[in-house]
Every structure is written in C-alpha cells, then in structure tokens.
C-alpha cells in the first residue's frame, strides 16, 4: 500500500471513530443527547414554538381590540392573555432563543466539538421546557398570571386578587431564570476558553464578543429578579411584608428590582440579534467589518450603560426629579453606542460591494424599524414627554418597534443565513421576499397607528374601549396590520417545516463567508469539525486558503478519538494558547431527570405542596450530585495525550486552569448580584423610613443583637480557615488532613449557620410584623442557606476523597469548593455586618 492509500485508510478510521464517539442514539434514547447540535435544535424549536404561542395571544388581543365594545374576550381572560403574551415573548422566546442559537452555532464558530459543559446545556434546556410549558399551560385552566408581565404589587401580592397565577409566574420563571444563568455560564466559559489555537481576543468573531457581553449582562441582570421573586413569594406564601406599606414595606422596591433586571434584558435580547447582523454584513459586503474595535466599544458600552436605565420605566412614580434626571441622561447616552453599531454596519456596506440576498433584506428592514423605535425611545427617555405617554399605546408602539426591529427581524435574517448550517438546506429566496414584505408592511401598518392611538390617550391593557373617541379606525388598522404580519410568519414557519425538506442540500460555505462556522461540509457531521485548525485571521476562510483541505484531511489538532472519548480543546483567555484536551461528558438522561425533579419541586411549591416539594427537591439535589459524581472531574487513564501537530496536552487540569473553576467563579458572580440586591432592599427600607430599624416598645432599636452574630462570625471564619487548611493539606499529599479539614469546616459552618438563624429568633424579630425583621431574616436566611450548601459540597468532597476520586494529584473538586467558600464567607461576613452593626450606626 502506498503512503497515500495508508493516509486515506487512516483518515477513514479516524472519521469512523469520531462518528462513533459523537453518535446520537436512535429511538427513545435520542432524548438522552447532550451534544450542542441536538440540544441547540431542541432549544431553538421550543423557543420558536413559545413565540408562535405568544404570537397567537397577541392576535387574540388585536382581534378583541379591532372594534369598540367588542365581546370576543372577557376582561379577565384578556388580562391573562396580555400578561402571558408579554411574559412568554420575553422569558420564553427572546432570552432563550439567544441561548439556543448560541449553543447551536457558537461551537462551530470556535471550531470546537462542543461547549465545555454539554450536560449543563441539556439541563438548562429541560428546565426551560418544563418551566415554559407550566407557565403557558396555565391559561388553558383559566389560571394564568394576569397582573401584567411585570407583576406590580400590591395588585399581585394579594392571593385573593391574583389567584394562583402570580405563583405560577414567580416560580415558573425563577426556574427558567436558573436555566438562563446556567446557559450564560456555559457560553462565557465557551467563548473565553474553547477557542481554537491562535484565535486571539482581537481575532475572534464579533458574535463571540456579543455572547461574552450578553452572558455577563445576564449574570448581573437576572439575579436581582430572582432576589425579587424570593421576596415576592415570601410575601405571598408567608406574609412577609416587603411590598406592603401598611407594615413598612414598599411596592416600589419590586419595581426597582424588576427593572434592574427588565431594562438590561431589553439589551440582552437586542445585542445577540445584532450580533447575527455583525456576522452576515461582512459576508455580503464581501469585506472585513469596518471598525471591529468600534463594535467592541458599542457592545461593551451598551452592556454597561443599559444598567443605568431602569428607572426610566418608573418616571411617573413620584421619585425626585434629580433621580429621574440621572436615568434620563443615561437613557440618552445609550443611544451613542447603539448608533455606533449601526454606523459600523452602514460603513461596511458602503466600503464593500454588497451582494443582495434575503438575509440582507431582513437586515436592512430591521435597521429601518429599529432606528424608528430607537428615536421614539429617545423621546420617552425625556421624563416630561414620558409623563404624557406613560402607559399608553405610544409605549406599546415604541417597544414593539425596538423589539421587532432590534430582535425579531435580525433573528429572521439570521435564520435565513444560518438555516443551511443547521439543516443543510437553504430556505426559499422567493418565499423569503414574500415573508419579508408581508412582515415589514404588516408590522408598520399594525404598529405605526399605535403611536397615534397612544397620543390620543388610549391606555395599555384595556380590554375594550367606547366608540367615537377617535380610536376606532386606528385600532382596526392595527388589527389588520397585525394579521398581515402574522401571515408572513406563517409562511416562514411553513417554509421551515415543510418547504425546506423539498430543497436540495446547500453547497459547502453557501454564502462564501469568511468565518469558521462555514468550515465544514453540509449537512454537518455529528462530530462537528473534522480537526481543530490553528487560526491566524478574523476571516480564516478568506485569508487561509489551505484551511479547508487541512481540516478535512485531519492535519490539524484532535483529528481522532483514539480512546473513544468526546474531546475538545481548551485554550488560554487572551491568546488562545492550547492548555488542555478537555474530555466532555457524553449522552445521559441525568440532566433531564434532574430538571424534572427540580422542576417538580418548584411547581409543587406553586400549589403549596410544601413537604412533597421539599422531598422532591432533595431528590433533585441527590440526582445532581450523582451527575457530578459520575460526569465531572473524571480521572483520566493517562496524564496527557498527543493532540496532533506534535503537541501534547494534559487531560486533567485544576484550579484557575480548569473550566470548572471558571464556571464556579462566574456562577458565584451572579450569586453575589442576587445577594447585593437583597442588601440593596435592606438599605432601601432604611431610606424610606425615618426610624430604621424600628424601635421596641421600650424605645431601644430592634435588631438581632451582637452576641450571636459575633459567634456566627467567629465560627464562619473558622470554617473558611479550615477549608484553606484542608486544601493546603491536600496539596501536601495528606488525605487525612484534607478529611479532617473538611469535617471540621462542616461542623463550624453548621454552627455558624445555626447561630445566624438563632440570632433573630432569640431577639424576637417576627418577619410578618414589619419589613425590617423580614429583611433581617431574609438576609440571614440567605447566608445560612449558602453555608448549608457549602456543607453539602464539603460532604461531597469528603465522599470523593474516601472514594479515591479526590487526591493530591486529582484535585479539581477541592479547588472549586474552596472558591465557593471564598464567596460564601464574603456573603456571611457582609450579612452579619449589615444586620448586626448597621443598627448601631442608625
């Protein structure tokens, strides 16, 4: 046999091995898949299904409003319909579709075989599906939430007024938010650590920049809402009066917490869609993007500024004008980076030779609509104008222009662009033009008149209106437009579901793009990239002519799966130097089982089955531990392996080098944001009360005292120190030292947590009496729960050590748990300082 034939035979064997390792099982076991391509597809399809569902709700609303005094929907059902429309669009479509698309295409852009935590993606997906079906399904039992998608108290804190709907909203969505945070962690670590060798921070695709920024924004935006949800549920289920002014609470606190989440969320859904445009504009302009650094400026700048806008949803709540002024100024300032992105796209198109195509048609249309919505946004950012337009259809028009122009239309552009990558076939260009013009015209016919209905005084969320006050024909036109818009979407859906199958496979790199996602053959093989190339350009397919051939012939990294393991490369953050060959876990039902158990405990809580929820929740925790035990920090059969091109990489790294450490770090950042929101709530109550903490009848200030918090502090310091000691002993090779340290730390932590809870109890602070004791309890409870979770982790490490899976050489677990303890210790110390020392100052 000649060398050439030997080469070919070897290549065939490698491909067979790769296919076997990455194979997705047939039949019912298909649902155990965790590979990014399968999970991404399910995620996208599910989010799109929720979108269609919410769209139907929107059409129902338009049908009801088409003529005055209409009786199609009764008032109560209308309330459920508009609440669920907003909720599903934002929580079940806009944010999840970002995660779905990113899970689907990010690995291909990075020439990675998978993201670092495939089972976490799968877990996130199942959580999303269960939570979404739970929330949406409620409307079929006439039990959907009906207080508006932002759930303002006091309307919604009263269980008699709102029924079970508010609980379904709070618990169902909290559950989904956890999944969103999981996806954010996965995507951030993916962008930072899973790039191909040589793809430095200045050459990574712009989409990666956006994913990074949006992932970071999720970590700062979602936790305040989770914190708010906790306060809200405590008020609804246990009567802790956080939002009840009669007992020292304040409904405005909820508005703050909700909009600290809610406004950045607008940008969380907008930026990833714009990111799709940033990928396709250079492709169709046939040149690199003009102003890569400017896009980075815009993405980072928008990411930050978007956190200074939340009060512009609260301009009419009576806050002092100076507070409004700050937020108004920030709302104007955010137009700068947003505008920069649009100018960059325009400049790229002007500097290149634009090839006309369906994706670009959608891109152009979306920019038109978005700019219009952005300009009305600048109008409502001016407080005096907002006082007039607040809660009218003007705002409805504005937000739909922004969201449909900034999120939905670019997403559809992305769909036309990326469907060949995912399905192997192109959508129809002819139908695409129909879809575009139906949607574009329908949208403008539907939503443009709403500006005028709004200026003529029509409020949002009314289920009907009297005739003859100048709203009739405007509403009728809006309804007609909405149905035209929807017909475009129906056509699109038909093309994706039916039309697509009739068309031939697309050629490789059908758009002649320059970025790595178009590297492989279509339809893509299950293992993704054939071998991982070294990258030396922002547009490697344009600038590295031999790249495709080298990759196909397996001449790059990781061309094989000799040991029958799923593997991908981990590289350094800034310069993408290879640091590890990461073994990623394969298919498993465990993520689904965990999601079902955790989901059941959330759903049970909504129906007040507390004990069974607790039992199911604990079962869920054990299932998660079984998953971790069997799928993470797996000890490899050898220290390192050759990955091709003469490079040998370690299979096991720990501490700051491991992806797990980064994931823990990032998750805890999010956790800290939730904690900061609770601390904010405490001080918020201080600002609204003249006397805070309130006084006991004898005139002394209420509080948990000093003795027990001091004891809790000492025990906590001991627990933290013992963890450091345990890690040091383990590094020195002493398993006994590690186990002693862990056991000692666990005892001290339990003592500290008990002292934290005993302190307010012995002081007689009753959380149902006033917002002050309630905030003290919630802070201490939060800290104690973190210590308890830390004890579970210590027990896990102890078991791993006894099971021989945690040793001086194989020490991922202890590093990650010590990292958790740094954060837990900070949480505990800040909590104790706030609840014990602040009353002395005040």
């Amino acid at each position: 046999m000649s060398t050439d034939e030997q080469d070919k035979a070897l290549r065939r064997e490698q491909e067979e091995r790769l296919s076997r390792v990455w194979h997705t099982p047939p039949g019912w076991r298909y649902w155990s898949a965790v590979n990014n391509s399968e999970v991404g597809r399910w995620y996208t399809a599910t989010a799109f299904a929720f979108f269609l569902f919410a769209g139907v709700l929107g059409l129902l609303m338009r049908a009801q409003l088409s003529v005055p005094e209409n009786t199609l929907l009764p008032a109560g059902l209308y309330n459920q319909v508009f609440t669920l429309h907003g909720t599903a669009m934002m929580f079940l479509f806009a944010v999840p579709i970002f995660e779905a698309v990113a899970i689907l295409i990010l690995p291909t852009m990075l020439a990675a075989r998978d993201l670092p935590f495939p089972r976490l993606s799968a877990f996130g997906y199942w959580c999303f599906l269960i939570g979404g079906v739970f929330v949406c399904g409620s409307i079929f039992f006439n039990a959907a939430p009906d207080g508006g998608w932002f759930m303002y108290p006091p309307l919604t804190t009263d269980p008699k007024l709102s029924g079970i709907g508010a609980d379904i909203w709070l618990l169902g969505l909290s559950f989904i938010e956890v999944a969103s945070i999981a996806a954010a962690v996965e995507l951030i670590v993916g962008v930072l650590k899973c790039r191909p060798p040589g793809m430095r921070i200045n050459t990574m695709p712009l989409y990666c920049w956006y994913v990074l920024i949006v992932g970071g924004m999720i970590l700062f935006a979602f936790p305040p809402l989770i914190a708010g949800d906790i306060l809200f549920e405590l008020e609804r289920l246990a009567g802790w009066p956080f939002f009840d002014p009669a007992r020292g609470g304040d409904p405005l606190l909820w508005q703050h917490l909700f909009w600290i989440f809610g406004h950045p969320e607008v940008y969380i859904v907008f930026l990833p869609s714009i990111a799709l445009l940033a990928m396709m504009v250079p492709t169709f302009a046939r040149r690199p993007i003009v102003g890569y650094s400017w896009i980075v400026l815009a993405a980072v700048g928008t990411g930050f500024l978007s956190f200074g806008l939340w009060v512009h949803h609260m301009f009419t709540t009576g806050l002092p004008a100076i507070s409004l002024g700050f937020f108004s100024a920030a709302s104007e300032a955010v137009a700068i980076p947003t505008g920069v992105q649009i100018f960059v796209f325009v400049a790229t198109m002007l500097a290149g030779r634009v090839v006309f195509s369906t994706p670009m048609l959608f891109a152009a249309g979306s920019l038109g609509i978005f700019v219009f919505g952005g300009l009305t946004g600048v109008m409502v950012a001016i407080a005096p104008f907002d006082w007039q337009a607040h809660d009218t259809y003007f705002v409805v028009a504005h937000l739909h222009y922004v969201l449909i122009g900034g999120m939905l239309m670019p997403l559809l552009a992305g769909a036309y662009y990326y469907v060949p990558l995912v399905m192997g076939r192109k959508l129809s260009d002819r139908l695409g033009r129909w879809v575009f013009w139906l949607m574009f015209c329908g949208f403008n016919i539907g939503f443009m008149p709403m500006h005028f209905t709004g200026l003529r005084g029509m409020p949002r969320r009314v289920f009907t209106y009297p005739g003859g006050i100048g709203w009739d024909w405007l509403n009728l036109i809006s309804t007609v437009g909405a149905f035209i818009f929807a017909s475009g979407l129906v056509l699109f859906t038909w093309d994706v579901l039916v039309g697509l199958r009739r068309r031939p496979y697309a050629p490789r790199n059908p758009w002649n793009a320059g970025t790595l996602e178009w590297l492989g053959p279509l339809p893509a093989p299950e293992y993704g990239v054939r071998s991982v190339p070294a990258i030396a350009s922002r547009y490697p397919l344009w600038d590295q002519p031999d790249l495709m051939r080298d990759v196909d012939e397996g001449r790059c990294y990781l061309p094989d799966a000799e040991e029958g393991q799923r593997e991908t490369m981990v590289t350094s953050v800034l310069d993408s130097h290879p640091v590890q060959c990461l073994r990623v876990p394969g298919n498993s039902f465990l993520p689904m089982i965990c999601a079902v158990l955790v989901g059941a405990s959330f759903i049970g809580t909504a129906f007040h089955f507390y004990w069974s929820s607790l039992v199911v929740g604990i079962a869920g925790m054990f299932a998660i531990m079984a998953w971790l035990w069997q799928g993470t920090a797996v000890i490899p059969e050898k220290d390192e392996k050759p990955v091709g091109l003469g490079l040998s990489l370690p299979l096991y790294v720990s501490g700051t080098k491991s992806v797990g450490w980064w994931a823990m770090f990032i998750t805890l950042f999010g956790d800290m944001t939730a904690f900061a929101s609770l601390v904010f709530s405490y001080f918020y109550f201080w600002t609204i009360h003249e006397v805070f903490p309130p006084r006991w009848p004898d005139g002394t200030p209420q509080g948990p005292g000093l003795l027990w918090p001091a004891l809790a502090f000492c025990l906590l310091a001991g627990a933290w120190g013992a963890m450091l000691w345990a890690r040091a002993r383990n590094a020195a090779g002493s398993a006994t030292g590690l186990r002693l340290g862990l056991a000692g730390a666990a005892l001290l932590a339990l003592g500290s947590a008990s002292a934290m809870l005993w302190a307010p109890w012995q002081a007689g602070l009753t959380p149902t009496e006033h917002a002050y004791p309630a905030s003290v309890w919630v802070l201490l409870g939060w800290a104690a729960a973190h210590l308890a979770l830390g004890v579970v982790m210590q027990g896990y490490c102890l078991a791993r050590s006894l099971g021989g899976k945690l040793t001086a050489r194989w020490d991922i677990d202890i590093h990650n748990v010590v990292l958790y303890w740094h954060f837990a210790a900070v949480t505990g110390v800040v909590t104790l300082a706030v609840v014990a020392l602040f009353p002395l100052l005040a």
Partner: protein
Amino acid sequence: MVLRLRERADLWTLLMPPTVWALHFLYCYVVAAIHCAKLGGISLTEPNAGQSFAPLGEVRLLVAAGTLVAWALIVIGARQAWRHWGSSLEDLPHDAATPEDRQSFLGFATLLLSGLSFVSVLFIALPAFLIQDCR
C-alpha cells in the same frame, strides 16, 4: 483591578472605564436619593409624593467631587490604554494574530470606551446642576 497600572492589556483593563462610569452613576444616584429621602423629607409611601422643595444642598458638591474623581480615573485608564495601543493609527485594524496586535487592539478598544465613559459621566452629572431641588 482598576488602578494598578499594567504592562499588558487584558479584559480587566478593557472594563475599567465603563466600570468607573457605573460606580459614578451609582454614587450620584445614591447621594441624591439619600439626601432627598433623609434630609429633603421625600416620602414615596405618603400622599403628595415627591412634593419637597428642600434644596439639593451638598448634593451638587458631592456629585461634582465624584465626577472629578471619575474623570481622573477614566483619564488614567485612557492614558494606560494609549500606551497599550502604541498610538499606531497606521496599523489599524489590528487584526493580525500577533501579541502586538492583540495588545494594540485592546488598547484601542479601551481608549474608545474611555471616551464613551468620559462623555457619559458628564451626562450623568449634569442633572445635579440643572435641577433646583428635591421635587
């Protein structure tokens, strides 16, 4: 993270200017909110919310001082970014896969962010000087 000057640009140096903006924003908001709630007698939970003619008093001074500090920090960050960038306009768009271009790119992007942050800090400070009292 913020003040230590570094030889090598990284993601932390990139995030410094907007982080300063965020802290300045939070600072202005908190100073004004506490002043008007505690000294201005604003109470949102009683009738006539927001009807307080209490002057802004020390708020202006505090906002001015905070703004100067924020500007100073942003300028420090910008100077460092300028150094990282190497003021190499002719080398744009810094798209080579080399450590030098990575450094220049991060420097340039940080410089742009410093500009945005500087202007946005001004935006945020202005209301304190345009508004008279706690109404």
